[in-house]
């Protein structure tokens, strides 16, 4: 682990912003502790060395021959696509206005 404690409060705030999650104040502290505990546990992983392990030749790959051929298939109708939409108008999904960051 680096000398700096990786889980300062502002980091949790930063992660929350990245993940688009807001934590209620009362849970924030508890969550921070949990994250901290997990991170410390995973420090053992950080310290471990994993050298000289061969690649597995049977690992799957995408070979060009096996890729999907470029044939268009009829897609679902707009109604089907929008079936589970929380809000729709004019055959489109509707969201509250998007603000450029």
């Amino acid at each position, binding site marked *: 682990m680096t000398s700096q404690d990786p889980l300062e409060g502002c980091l949790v705030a930063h992660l929350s912003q*990245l993940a*688009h999650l807001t934590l209620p104040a009362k849970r924030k502290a508890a969550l921070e502790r949990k994250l901290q505990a997990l991170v410390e546990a995973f420090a053992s992983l950080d310290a471990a060395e994993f050298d000289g392990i061969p690649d597995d030749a049977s*690992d*799957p*790959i*995408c*070979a*060009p*021959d096996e*890729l*999907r*051929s*470029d*044939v*268009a*298939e*009829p*897609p*679902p*109708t*707009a109604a089907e*696509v*929008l079936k589970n939409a929380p*809000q729709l*108008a*004019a*055959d*489109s*999904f*509707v*969201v*509250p*206005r*998007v603000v*450029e*960051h």
Partner: protein
Amino acid sequence: MNGYTTVIGLEVHVQLGTASKLFSPAPVAALGDPNTRVHYVDLGLPGALPRPNRRAIELATRAALALDSEVQLRSEFARKHYFYPDLPKGYQISQFDKPLALGGAVPCGPNKTCRLHRLHVEEDAGKLTHTSIGTLVDLNRAGVALVEIVSEPDMRRPDEARAFLHHLRDVMRFAGVSDCDLELGSMRCDANISLMPDGSEAFGKKVELKNLNSIKMVERALEYEERRQTAILAAGGTIISETRGWHDELGESRSQRSKEQAPDYRYLPDPDLPPLMLTEAFVAQQRQQIGELPEQRRARFHAQYGLAEHDVRSLAQDRKVGDWFECVVTAGADSKLACNWLIEDLLPALRDRGLHLAQSPVTPDQLAAVIALVQNKTLTQRTSRQVLQHLLDHDVTPNEAVDELRLGRIADEAQLQPLIDAAMQEFPQAVKTFLAGKEKALDALKGHVMKATRGRADHEVLDRMLRAIIASA
């Protein structure tokens, strides 16, 4: 410029010419009612999984080869995460540290080349429309296959950026990768520009320009930005690293968002997609499919057909035109004539009829035949053009056209005699003037016969006969 060097880099997205999307079999087409070209994979529905499109990989590989970029046999798909309503999965499937190709080069001036940094494949996002009730989301475009081409910041002038884009566009079209039309959106360009103080090693603060909807606009925006940044620096200010949108109607760029902190996309190798493994054989196949590129073709046409610079340029710009030209020559026509006929007569005539060369009712063999008819004097320049027009509208052979139009050259003296007599009667003064020494006086007589024969009279025979008759008069 004023103690600063302009540094320009470009990031270009090219839409690949596939029938279906990159990871789903939904159709790709320019137009369509909203959300009618959306597969569940494009919608990011839980449980839907991506399936890569072979042709997209083929075309992307060709793009890389056409730009002299080094194709990486092993590359990986990666998820690039951010939240936005045009991105249903909350991430874009792209490529991160193992892209399809590295390096490459694009000419950006008569003696200048701009290096490429990399080229990779990725999927496009949907489209947003802002309205009073909120933002509307149409996912028709979500998932379309793109290739992203990133240049090194080697360009130093806005016109170099223009040249870069023209060349890139031509090569992409030529290689059959994309129709690459900035105005239609099959090519999109963001530009980065900074000013570096002369003598400095470090680049200045970079500004990213977006909303550049034509190649000319790219150049204009860069010119504006160059001036704007110069003015700020001259006044002792500092440039803010940011994204600025170009507003062409206002002729200025406006700040969109600060770039001081780069977004964290949390790239993750896509666990739904195993690494892409190309073979040398596959790459060789793609190279073969591209065939000759514009530069090579220009050189060859010049050497092989002895054509002038601007003729070569016209023929080599579009692969189909060049291919067509070569077929006409193979069918026996002289290369210069074939070139002229194709560029000056056939293509304009097709355009008038709203047709592409591929849809031409006239085949290369037929054009060669028409040219031959002019060469053997069956037709004159004028009448041969009439034949061409006729062939475009009627399904007949050149010889049939000549007959139908009654355009065969009249070289039969018996036919011409009465017409010459009539002309001499019409222009007695001309005869006298000619005998007095004015050669040009013959033109009136010739013109009269030509008119009567609708241009079919054989020049040489007519000339010979007229002189003979006048001489013996």
